[in-house]
């Protein structure tokens, strides 16, 4: 039989579970030229989705849906919190106030590539005398660590500010979760996944890029502290510290500038929610200062 007779007499159909030969399967094919119902026991078989289609053929496809590793508060030093389950419960009760905030979508891939060129410039300048201080900061800020926030307040080594420290830990814990939800929604690839010539100083965290949680969390601390103590002389400086921490992630090569900006925008929009959820801890912190 001719090649096109094979096509005319038989047909492969793609189904969600596999490839189907000739729609129905009952009997083995005796005469393929005429058997419209052929295929037998073999008729439907694996047509697996390629495990690595994202990386190899279709970079944007699975939108980098890595899941969050459990990196919450278990590493907290003395003064850290236990899992803040009460506050999480409050947070979840207010879900409709923070789940779908109007965070602008991230840049498209072409925009991300342009931002990655800026990161390559930062990488090239990272060792220059003017910027070399960032290395130490980047490594220190990689984990959950408060000195970046406590030092501007002048309480880093003082023991009387436990409630303030606890508030900061609480904000970091709650915002981590919120940020991860937005990251998952947009599924933005990390900079060196878009621009392989980048050499990040740190390993890529196991979640997506946009928005930057370092930015979101740091600015959330700044926004909330400025609600607790707007009159503190370092209130404004907290925002500068937050921006330094956020931008250090760009210098490390793990975040785009648009991630930083989105973290800021999200922190500002989430602040009214956190103010409700953390009210008790905010009052306790305030009491340490007044």
């Amino acid at each position, binding site marked *: 039989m001719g090649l096109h007779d094979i096509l005319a007499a038989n*047909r492969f159909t793609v189904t969600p579970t*596999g490839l189907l030969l000739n729609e129905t399967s009952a009997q083995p094919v005796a005469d393929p030229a005429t058997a419209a119902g052929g295929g037998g026991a073999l008729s439907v078989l694996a047509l697996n989705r390629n495990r690595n289609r994202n990386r190899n053929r279709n970079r944007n496809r699975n939108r980098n849906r890595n899941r969050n590793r459990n990196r919450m508060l278990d590493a907290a030093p003395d003064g850290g919190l236990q899992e803040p389950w009460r506050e999480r419960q409050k947070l979840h009760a207010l879900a409709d106030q923070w789940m779908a905030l109007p965070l602008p979508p991230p840049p498209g891939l072409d925009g991300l590539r342009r931002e990655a060129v800026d990161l390559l410039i930062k990488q090239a300048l990272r060792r220059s005398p003017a910027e070399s201080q960032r290395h130490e900061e980047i490594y220190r800020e990689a984990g959950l660590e408060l000195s970046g926030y406590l030092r501007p307040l002048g309480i880093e080594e003082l023991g009387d500010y436990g409630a303030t420290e606890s508030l900061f830990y609480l904000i970091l814990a709650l915002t981590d979760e919120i940020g991860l939800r937005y990251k998952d929604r947009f599924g933005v690839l990390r900079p060196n996944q878009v621009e392989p010539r980048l050499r990040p100083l740190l390993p890529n965290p196991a979640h997506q890029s946009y928005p930057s949680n370092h930015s979101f969390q740091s600015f959330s601390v700044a926004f909330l502290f400025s609600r607790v103590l707007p009159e503190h002389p370092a209130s404004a400086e907290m925002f500068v510290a937050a921006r330094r921490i956020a931008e250090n992630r760009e210098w490390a090569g793990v975040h785009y500038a648009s991630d930083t900006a989105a973290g800021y925008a999200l922190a500002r929009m989430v602040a009214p929610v956190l103010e409700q959820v953390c009210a008790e801890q905010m009052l306790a912190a305030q009491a340490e200062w007044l």
Partner: protein
Amino acid sequence: MDGYTETAVPAALHYDALWHLVTLGVLDADHAPRGWALSKPEKPTKVVVIDTSAAPDHPNLVDAIDRDLSLDFFSARLGSFPYLPEGQDQIGALPLDWTTTIADGLPRSSGLLAELVDRLSSGSAAHHLGVQPCVSPMFSAHGTNIAGLVGARPAIAQQALPGGGTADLPLPYSGVDPMCRIIQVSTNFDPAPESLILAFLYADLVGADVVLLPRVIADPVRTVPELDDIKIGDRSLGDMVRQVAPVEGEADLWSELAALIVAVSHRRPVVCAAGNAAEDGGIYPANLATDHNGIISVGAVNAKGQRSGFAPARGVTVAAPSNDAEIFDATEIRLDESAPDYDPIGVPVDNDNAKYSRFDVISTDVPGPAGYSGSSVPTDPVGAPIREFGSYFSRFGGTSAASALVAGFLSLGMSTGAMTGRSGVEAKGWLLGKCHAVGDPDAPLSMPCWDGKPTFPDA
């Protein structure tokens, strides 16, 4: 996979595995050729595919891949012939264009051409210097999928019946041009120019009618975005972020490769994938395409006739059917609402989700557990009855798939005599003459259609 009942899945989720050929107007809805007929050309159209190795024993590819001329540059510097019959350790008199002038004006490439010609002379070792080719079918998924889209033949294989014995098993799959011969030229992916120069020289030596390059070339200077024009002080950014010292003389070789690809494209079309990350203007070397050369940069459209989410929006010569990708960014919001993990929270009401298509392009895959689609049983020995055919095919996509379809389309034009001028520019002109505007009316893409107007099965 087992235990499937035919009523388990609503028919609306089913689609024709050859939809892309119907969309291209090559086959009608009943899979009969539209306005062309199969013949046995005396001189089959030669499509040189520069990619990974392939699985030449796949029943749909066994007559498509040229075993005498396919050549592997992965491991042996001047190439080892991977698919010669068992025991054949010398090559015969190959039908090559020994006097080609393709490298004129390119001094280093001319030197390589002289070496290659010498190595290919009659009686030379099949495996250069005794070095094995690096072509295990297990790691040949990309090349196998590409080859299938270009030139797979419908086949009747033998299936092993559960109770013993065998029966005919139709494999109703076809590439765009089931008459062509595919010369598989494989290289490794070390970002070094020499083996790619050799590959393009070889494409000219064998007299390729069409060259297909469904991949990027990682030229350190020409990789998009190019960094050398960005200066920090008096140094270029490319120079400052370079991780290893440049190899002496390699910059010249890279430049010659770019010139060689253009030169090769003047003699026949060179079809290149435009990129899978929405690269404006396309990746290198697709971005070498101009009106004055035969390089064809290929973008992608999905089964709804919309630009695929991953495909470049601008700077492509033509587009062809492929799969789609979800997008959630400032350029567009196009999500698969039927995906099991789809979450409507935070998705603006004003979105393009309706443009998303779940359809993939189906192609031939490495049989057995390896390849893009796996199997729960070991690979069937070559020639033995097939125990399952699921692993012989897979979902495929990207601009790789689209470029393979365009290469097959050009090949079909040549095999049927529909296209007469064979130069790259003439072939491109013929292809563009077959094109229709598809996709966004404000930024239309040109898609070829063999006969009639393109139709999209998911629209």
